[in-house]
């Protein structure tokens, strides 16, 4: 991510709009989600307010996801998410080694950003996992909690709503962890803030 001289236009307007909306909604959903889960009127957002915000933000995020999904189906951006299976694990390890050791020795990034390859292998893996597994599961389970008649009635004596809720929480937890790690790794640009600038002006 670190080495390149000419700025590359990597983030078209629609990606940037989708990204900023996604970030704001995820943040809102995490805060209100925690408030619902650990509902405590003295330290968390008031329950009824949290539920209303969480519901509306969840629906907006779903629509925003559809934009991302369709955009990636039919534009060049979707190509960045295609994983080349051969040697992928090895490349993952190289990137892992860079983040855990190389970066402290100021070694150059093993997979610098190019117009053809926006993500390093670790990014690619985590983005595919989150955007194509966790977020869809969060949306589907969220829909099940929003309208519980959609969930199955029960399995081995436990309500289908319980499974749905547990899945939703699991997804929420992974997304929270992802957001923290994602924000930290965004400081790995030329300067600590250059990647944050990129996602606003589109140029890397």
């Amino acid at each position, binding site marked *: 991510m670190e080495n390149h001289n000419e700025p590359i236009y990597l983030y078209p307007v629609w990606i940037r709009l989708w990204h900023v909306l996604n970030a704001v909604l995820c943040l809102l959903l995490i805060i209100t989600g925690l408030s*619902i*889960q650990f*509902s*405590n*009127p*003295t330290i968390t957002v*008031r*329950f*009824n307010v949290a*539920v*209303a915000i*969480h*519901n*509306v933000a969840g*629906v907006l995020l779903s629509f925003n996801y559809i934009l991302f*999904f369709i955009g*990636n*189906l039919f534009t060049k951006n*979707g*190509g960045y*998410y*295609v*994983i*080349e*299976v*051969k040697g992928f694990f090895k490349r993952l390890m190289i990137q892992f080694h860079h983040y855990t050791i190389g*970066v*402290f*020795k*100021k070694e150059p990034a093993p997979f610098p950003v190019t117009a053809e390859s926006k993500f390093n292998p670790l990014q690619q893996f985590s983005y*595919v996992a989150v*955007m*194509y*597994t966790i977020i*869809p599961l969060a949306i*589907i389970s969220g829909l099940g*909690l*929003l*309208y*519980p*008649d959609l969930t*199955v*009635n*029960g399995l081995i*004596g*436990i*309500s*289908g*709503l*319980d499974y749905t*809720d*547990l899945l939703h*929480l699991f997804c929420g*937890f992974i997304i*929270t*962890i992802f957001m*923290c*790690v994602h924000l*930290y790794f965004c*400081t790995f640009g030329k300067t600590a803030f250059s990647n944050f600038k990129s996602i606003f002006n589109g140029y890397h």
Partner: protein
Amino acid sequence: MIYRANIRPAWVVLFLLLLFAVAFALVKGTDSSSSGKKVKPVAKNKIVNLEQFPVNEKCLRCHGQSKYTFENAESKKISYKRMYSELIIDRNEFYISNHKGFKCTDCHSEDYLTFPHPGNLRMEAKANCIDCHGGDEKYAKFQFEKIDSNFMTSVHSQKHSEEFTCWMCHNPHTYRINARTNENLQETVAYDNLICLNCHGDVTKYELLTNKQQPNILQKHDWLPNQATHFINVRCIECHARNKDTLLIAHEIMPKNMAVKKCESCHAKNSILYASLFKYQVKENIKKQGLFKGLFLSETSTIGPDQNNTLNIISIVLFSLTILAILIHAVIRIQKSH
């Protein structure tokens, strides 16, 4: 040879979604849907027939109404006077109360039978529950001793003088066992909550006990979702008294900061019941408020049926470890860059 999975993940997800939809349709089709059992209607609260107790009429002739008459011994004229509201005994209430079988003079001095009543009777010591019911085998099942020791640790007893007696909440002239005998839950809730509201909803009674300004109960509880429903269906003591499994009715009223405030304390004990109630609630919300308001802006949500402490701890530990790893990494990076 290049092994390139040249399929965009979006297509994979679309395929999985399709698969999921088919599986869902199959599972849903074989679901045992909710049974059509009808709820048995609750029986109406029985009202005890009023009995006549002529012996008490001597007192109730004056104390049973808002005015009383007497003949002035000197002028021989009939006088009309108002009876103070605190001294009025409602016959209807008294004769369905627990103490309906008592004569007034069983608890009050026989000197009251003379009129005008002797002035020193104002200082008469009044008996408490435990004075009659304590140590009595017949009443052992009501656990008066436990109730008394429970009450002694409550804020009512601790924060107020000895003037705060059982009678502050349980009027001996009207009190009746309700929760054990009444099948209508909402009537029981209303009856029990009225006991609290007698002081907490009446500034004149509240001020008798404290110099503090009386808090507005509705405002103090405005954080509570579905406030009206809670007030109708839940007794104040469920959240404000310490529940002990050894005592049926909790009497240890806790300080306000110790009141139950977490939804899951009540709503997560039986997730099967809760799940069915939740589904019902969402349907009702949509029916009453329309699709948008009922679905998105209603206050209904699950409060983690998974409120499982182990899971909570695991998630907090994992999250903390992630943040710690990030911090350590960042610190080493900053050190190396200098």
